[in-house]
């Protein structure tokens, strides 16, 4: 059975009579210690980066619209694919999830704010520094980094003046993530309302709790990896140079020890969001709450022992190939538990299909497709053929776009009325959903066929046999990109006005966040709410 938590409206106090009401002007944002303001900054920043990274990939898809070289030279093409990856991963997806965590976790556990509010502020204000470095590289001699977001040496060591900026951007974004993760862990461990035991926490809180540990264990390793790159480049070390007894493949091991937990960092919070939304619109408690928690924890543990499945073709010993193949396939078990639970939650529920639910349903269906192609890639001998083809691109975009991104969109549509106090225009929002859902498939589904037929990734030109599917994919990408402008308009409109939202917003949703008025006041729980 799912947990039951309800609080009555009089248990929360809205009066900010003390010294920490909302200050006005720029100081409110620069010096903020308020989780809602900081959450808003994270979300706006990630939306901005979403369009920066999106513009880059429009250039890529324009170049790939037909065979031959037409718009950009190959070096710039490589810069665009690399920067698209870095900006989307570290600028769009991760900050969006941290923004949602900031807004929702304190409200969901009945806390007044994050546990360490000033550090929370710094976590956010490091992001503009990191991205100033990263975006500035576009204008440097030698151009932006172009060796792929994975930064494999020796290729990445050919980067021009951008190289140290790339390394330091990673350091700064890593520091931001680590501080954010510490804050989330401490908030959840120390700030829960009385009687909110661990197994009564909403699943979004649980998934973020586990994600924060992944961040804490993975980001410092990434910082170490790029530090070694920096030392190899400027201080004469030989970590990744065989002549000195090092090994470029060692970088791949260290990178993916970070990189694989990183991909779960980008999906686990989305699991949490859909686990909040599906019960609301199926009007049934979440099926298998405890098993959801254990499945999430299992996925997190497994994520640290599967990293080399990204490197099957690099020449590892047979024992390693087998170990990483089997450990990777094991992940399908807890993931299958989750998909089963979401479907079982909907089974015989009285379902309605508001926009958050539509995005969640698309998430379950399309993420599962991404999971299946992941299983195909997990099989070592099969991966020998798929490695570095468009099949891989199709796979990880299925888990990241209709997976992570749709999860974020679902969460935004679900909680936007709580944040703004206004109901979202369902007609517009549903239009946005259908445009996104159709175009995302037009974009990425043909890429499976391209990859299986042998089209390599990260190359600006291709054989004419791949022309039709590439044109289809490009058209889908343009359509998807344009559809997101509608999302910006919907959010803008909802912030500016519209029908007043009730405190519950939806039909009897569960969770403490629905016991406070919409919009949620600047300070939510000044004294702990009492749970029944």
């Amino acid at each position, binding site marked *: 059975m799912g947990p039951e938590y309800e609080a009555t409206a009089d248990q929360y106090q809205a009066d900010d009579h003390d010294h920490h009401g909302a200050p006005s002007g720029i100081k409110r944002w620069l*010096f903020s210690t308020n989780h809602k303001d900081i959450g808003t900054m994270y979300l706006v920043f990630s939306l901005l980066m979403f369009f920066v990274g999106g513009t880059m990939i429009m250039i890529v898809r324009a170049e790939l619209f037909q065979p031959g070289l037409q718009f950009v030279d190959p070096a710039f093409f490589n810069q665009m694919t690399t920067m698209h990856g870095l900006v989307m991963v570290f600028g769009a997806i991760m900050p969006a999830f941290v923004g949602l965590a900031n807004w929702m976790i304190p409200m969901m556990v009945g806390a007044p704010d994050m546990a360490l509010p000033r550090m929370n502020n710094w976590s956010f204000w490091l992001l503009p520094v990191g991205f100033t470095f990263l975006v500035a590289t576009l204008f440097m001699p030698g151009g932006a980094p172009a060796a792929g977001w994975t930064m494999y040496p020796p290729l990445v060591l050919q980067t021009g003046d951008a190289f*140290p900026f790339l390394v330091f951007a990673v350091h700064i974004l890593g520091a931001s993530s680590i501080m954010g993760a*510490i804050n989330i862990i401490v908030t959840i461990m120390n700030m829960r309302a009385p009687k909110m035991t661990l197994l009564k926490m909403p699943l979004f809180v649980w998934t973020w709790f586990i994600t924060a540990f992944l961040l804490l*264990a993975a980001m410092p390793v990434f910082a*170490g990896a790029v530090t070694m790159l920096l030392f190899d480049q400027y201080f004469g070390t030989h970590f990744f140079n065989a002549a*000195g*007894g090092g090994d470029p493949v060692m970088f791949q091991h260290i990178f993916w020890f970070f990189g694989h937990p990183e991909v779960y960092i980008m999906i686990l919070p989305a699991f949490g969001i859909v686990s909040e939304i599906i019960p609301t619109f199926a009007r049934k408690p979440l099926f298998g709450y405890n098993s959801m928690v254990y499945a999430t924890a299992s996925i997190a543990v497994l994520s640290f022992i599967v990293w080399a499945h990204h490197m099957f073709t690099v020449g590892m010993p047979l024992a390693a190939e087998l170990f990483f193949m089997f450990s990777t396939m094991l992940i399908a078990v807890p993931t299958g538990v989750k998909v089963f639970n979401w479907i079982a939650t909907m089974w015989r529920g009285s379902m309605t299909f508001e926009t958050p639910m539509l995005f969640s349903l698309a998430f379950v269906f399309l993420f599962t497709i991404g999971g299946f192609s992941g299983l195909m890639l997990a099989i070592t001998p099969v991966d020998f053929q798929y490695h570095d083809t468009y099949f891989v691109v199709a796979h990880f975009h299925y888990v990241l776009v209709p997976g992570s991104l749709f999860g974020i969109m679902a969460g935004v549509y679900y909680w936007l009325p709580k944040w703004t106090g206004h109901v979202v225009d369902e007609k517009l929002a549903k239009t946005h959903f259908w445009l996104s859902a159709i175009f995302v498939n037009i974009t990425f589904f043909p890429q499976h066929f391209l990859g299986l037929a042998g089209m390599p990734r990260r190359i600006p030109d291709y054989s004419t046999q791949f022309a039709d599917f590439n044109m289809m994919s490009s058209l889908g990408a343009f359509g998807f990109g344009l559809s997101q402008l509608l999302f910006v308009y919907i959010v803008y409109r909802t912030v500016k006005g519209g029908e007043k939202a009730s405190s519950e917003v939806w039909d009897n949703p569960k969770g403490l966040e629905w016991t406070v008025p919409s919009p949620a006041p600047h300070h939510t729980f000044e004294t702990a709410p009492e749970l029944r």
Partner: protein
Amino acid sequence: MDHTHDKYYIPHGSHWPVVGSCALFMMLGGFAVYLNGAAIGGTVSLIGLALLVVMLAGWFGTVIAESMSDCYNSQVDKSFRMGMMWFIFSEVMFFAAFFGALFYARQLVIPWLGGEGTKFMTNLMLWPGFEALWPSNGPAHAGGEFETMAAAGLPAINTAILLSSSVTITIAHHALKNGNRLLLNLGVLVTVILGFSFIFLQATEYMHAYSELNLKLSTGIYGSTFFVLTGFHGLHVTIGAIFLTVIWFRVLRGHFTPQKHFAFEAAAWYWHFVDVVWLCLYFFVYWL
């Protein structure tokens, strides 16, 4: 969970985080410019570093003042403790990356370059005559002939120093809890002195390595792992020693009570952390 507080505590806004961001922007941006060959970058980087120090002093100063005026309830204290604990965990993972590199290079890369198992042809075609031995500066003998640092000399003294400093900080902690201010004062002071002695000896060792052993950062994979591991450890000892120095001045001013002394404990935890890292270093880098 501890809920002795009746009202939550939320700190007021602060300009220090933004100052910190500006400091890091200048420090790292300037350093990047410097690495690209423009000397002005070095100056900017140092100004950034100075600003970072100002920020840390200002931010911690604010928190200390708030703590001394009893702003913080037990819940805040617990948040600080958990925050420090998990911060140290992230530091452990940072070192894990470099230890991982050491183990991988020593156990896999060097034997493979030497032609172990299926890598026979690699050795024969690419690096003929290379024998898999540790320590190694690789088939190209990067940096030339070198000697390793003997575990028995300075490193052994340094091990003794760090281990005793862990004891002295623990003595100080017990003294603090028993209200023995004099012993507390002495315990922290001795720890600080031992800490800085360690750093001094480590610097001596580095000079010895560079001038007499021909062991340098560029001495292949051995020099890379040796200097990066011990270097980052030395940096952390320096931070820890500065941390403890601040604690000592706070002790002089009569801060900390037997019940409330989070900052002291945080410094002690951090100190034990650098101690444990050193033991791993001594074992895996110097000894084995």
